[in-house]
Structure formats: structure tokens, C-alpha cells
């Protein structure tokens, strides 16, 4: 693979060769390699993030053309289509699912500027803006928010989508969002795809539903309990239930068959009493009933 890489880089200037070599080394030294979007992250913050990843993953940012070269040379063509915009390569020996979770969790909200494209629908939520009556209400209305003055302040009457995902942010919108402190972007390392030991995972694969796994655990545990009890195979966890089950079975047989057993007697007596009352309830003629059963 390195021979192939050399061939591909032989026409490049020295510094580019070196850069591609560095990328090739990163790719080779980790079990999983991915492409990470870094758009909107100030360089100081990016340095901090890279430092935070130390021990978990290694991030290297360079020109996209060089990243493409390195990926192709390493046989990771599947990742090439992710090389678009501001991206870097990440290598990790950790579990890629865990890496994705970690990166997603570290994302932080950020304001959006004029000219940027909305990553998702931008919504101004219903409620009191806290802004005193003034021209701001007009600004809100002009960007499409249902706003009016009420009780001495500007209120948004309902959740108002002011820009759909993919739309470009205007100067007016950016101003209003800034005034309201709405930060519609999520900024952070954005893992776009990973190849782990030959298999490509996209964010849809990587975004595991922890709750679904939790309910699988519950279902599995409940199923095992059921099996243990239904097959009468006692375990420490299910022995008390099996005992209770056997007791209940004996009791219900005893009550059903009116077995003359001391333990069953109170329940049998109350069963008889309940039956008496149920029958009495079917009798309209009070003459036929003793006083305590009338009415």
C-alpha cells in the first residue's frame, strides 16, 4: 500500500508529499479512520478539541486534495465523497460508535451569521421576548414571526419557523436571532463517516439508540425470568417467585375445590359469603331476604 502511495505522490512538491505521508501514517496506525467536519470552529477552539481527543483519537486537518489522495492511496475511496468543505481526518482505535457519541455530546450551540446556510429549521419559540415595545416588534414580523405587543412587552404568539433548513440567513434574521440570543447552530467535530476494519459507517449507523438497547436488555431479562419460572428452573433471582407461584397454585386449587384445610378456611368462608351476597343481589323481593341483606 505504501508503494502505491509513493507512486501517486511522486509528482507533488516536497511539502505536499510529506503531508500526504503524514496522513497515510495516520490512516495506517489506527483501526478506524473517519472524516470529520470542522466548519465554524475557531482555530483556537479546534486546538482545544484536538487536545481533548488525545488518547481517544487523532485529528489531522489539511488540504482536501491531499486528504483525497491519502484516502485513495489507502484504499479508503468510500470516504472520499465526504471530503467536502472544511474537514479533517480522524483515526482511532476506540469504538467508532463510542467516538461518535463522544463527539456529538461535545457539540455546543453557536450563533448563525448573515450569509450562512441554516443547518436545520430556525424557529423562534412562543413566549415573552422580554424586549420592551418598540421597533423590534416590526423586525420580528418582517422575518415572519407572529409577534405583537402585549402586557407591556413584545410577545411571540406561537412557535414561528423563520427559515427552513438549507435557506440562507439574511442580515435582518441574523440581527433578530442575535437580539433574542438564539443560537441555531451546533458547532463541534462532526463525524461524517468512519471506516472501521473495512466497513463503512455513516452517522445513521453510528447514532445508536441507547434507549432501544436498554429496552432490549429489559426484554431479554424479562424473557429469561419468564423462561426460568415457566420451565420451573429455579435461579437465585427467580426462586422466590417460583415459591410464590406454587403457593398460589395450591391455594387456588384449594379454594376452587373447597378443600378442608385450615389455611384455606378464612378464604373459603369469605368466598361463600361473597357468593351469598351476589345471589342476594339478584333477589328483588325483600321478604325473601334477612335484614342484613336487604337493600
Amino acid at each position, binding site marked *: 500500500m505504501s508503494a502505491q502511495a509513493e507512486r501517486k505522490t511522486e509528482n507533488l512538491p516536497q511539502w505536499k508529499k510529506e503531508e500526504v505521508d503524514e496522513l497515510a501514517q495516520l490512516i495506517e496506525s489506527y483501526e478506524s479512520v473517519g472524516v470529520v467536519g470542522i466548519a465554524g470552529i475557531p482555530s483556537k477552539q479546534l486546538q482545544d478539541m484536538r487536545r481533548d481527543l488525545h488518547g481517544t483519537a487523532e485529528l489531522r486537518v489539511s488540504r482536501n486534495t491531499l486528504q483525497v489522495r491519502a484516502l485513495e492511496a489507502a484504499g479508503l475511496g468510500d470516504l472520499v465523497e465526504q471530503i467536502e468543505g472544511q474537514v479533517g481526518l480522524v483515526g482511532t482505535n476506540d469504538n467508532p460508535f463510542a467516538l461518535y457519541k463522544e463527539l456529538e455530546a461535545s457539540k455546543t450551540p453557536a450563533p448563525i451569521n448573515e450569509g450562512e446556510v441554516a443547518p436545520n429549521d430556525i424557529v423562534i419559540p412562543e413566549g415573552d421576548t422580554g424586549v420592551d415595545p418598540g421597533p423590534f416588534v416590526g423586525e420580528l414580523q418582517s422575518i415572519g414571526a407572529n409577534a405583537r405587543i402585549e402586557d407591556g412587552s413584545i410577545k411571540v404568539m406561537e412557535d414561528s419557523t423563520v427559515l427552513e433548513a438549507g435557506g440562507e440567513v439574511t442580515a435582518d434574521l441574523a440581527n433578530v436571532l442575535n437580539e433574542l440570543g438564539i443560537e441555531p447552530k451546533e458547532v463541534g467535530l462532526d463525524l461524517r463517516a468512519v471506516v472501521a476494519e473495512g466497513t463503512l459507517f455513516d452517522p445513521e449507523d453510528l447514532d445508536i439508540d441507547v434507549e432501544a438497547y436498554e429496552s432490549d436488555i429489559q426484554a431479554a431479562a424479562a424473557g429469561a425470568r419468564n423462561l426460568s419460572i415457566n420451565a420451573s428452573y429455579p435461579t437465585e433471582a427467580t426462586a422466590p417467585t417460583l415459591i410464590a407461584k406454587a403457593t398460589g397454585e395450591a391455594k387456588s386449587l384449594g379454594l376452587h375445590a373447597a378443600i378442608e384445610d385450615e389455611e384455606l378456611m378464612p378464604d373459603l368462608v369469605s368466598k361463600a359469603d*361473597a*357468593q*351469598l351476597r*351476589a*345471589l342476594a343481589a*339478584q*333477589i328483588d323481593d325483600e*321478604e325473601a331476604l334477612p335484614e342484613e*341483606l336487604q337493600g
Partner: protein
Amino acid sequence: MEYVYAALILNETDEELNEDNLTNVLDAAGVDVEESRVKALVAALEDVDIDEAVSEAAAVPAAGGAAGG
């Protein structure tokens, strides 16, 4: 209450639920039987499906338990 229990006993045997039989059962238990109550009870039960009434009682305590949940 003893009159109704006597009716329940007869319901479990093959004996007819009539005045004579009720009176006999109550007699045997030392009850000073009132003829008019026996008459009234027999008449009142004529159109009652005792087994059904009794099994409804069976459902009640269980339902209580379930409802408690």
C-alpha cells in the same frame, strides 16, 4: 342468611329448590323456619340463574385486585 345458604346448598345437589327441601335443610340446622320467608325466597329465585350469580361473585374479588393495580 341461613335461608340463602340453604338455597346455595340445594343448588349444588340435584335436589329441587322448593319449599319442602329448603325447610328440611333449615330444620336440620335447628332453624325455627318461617314459612313465608321460604315461600318468598323460592319465588324470588325462580327466575335467577344461581350458578351465574355465584360466578359473578367470583369475578368481583379478583376484579378488585386487578383494579387496585
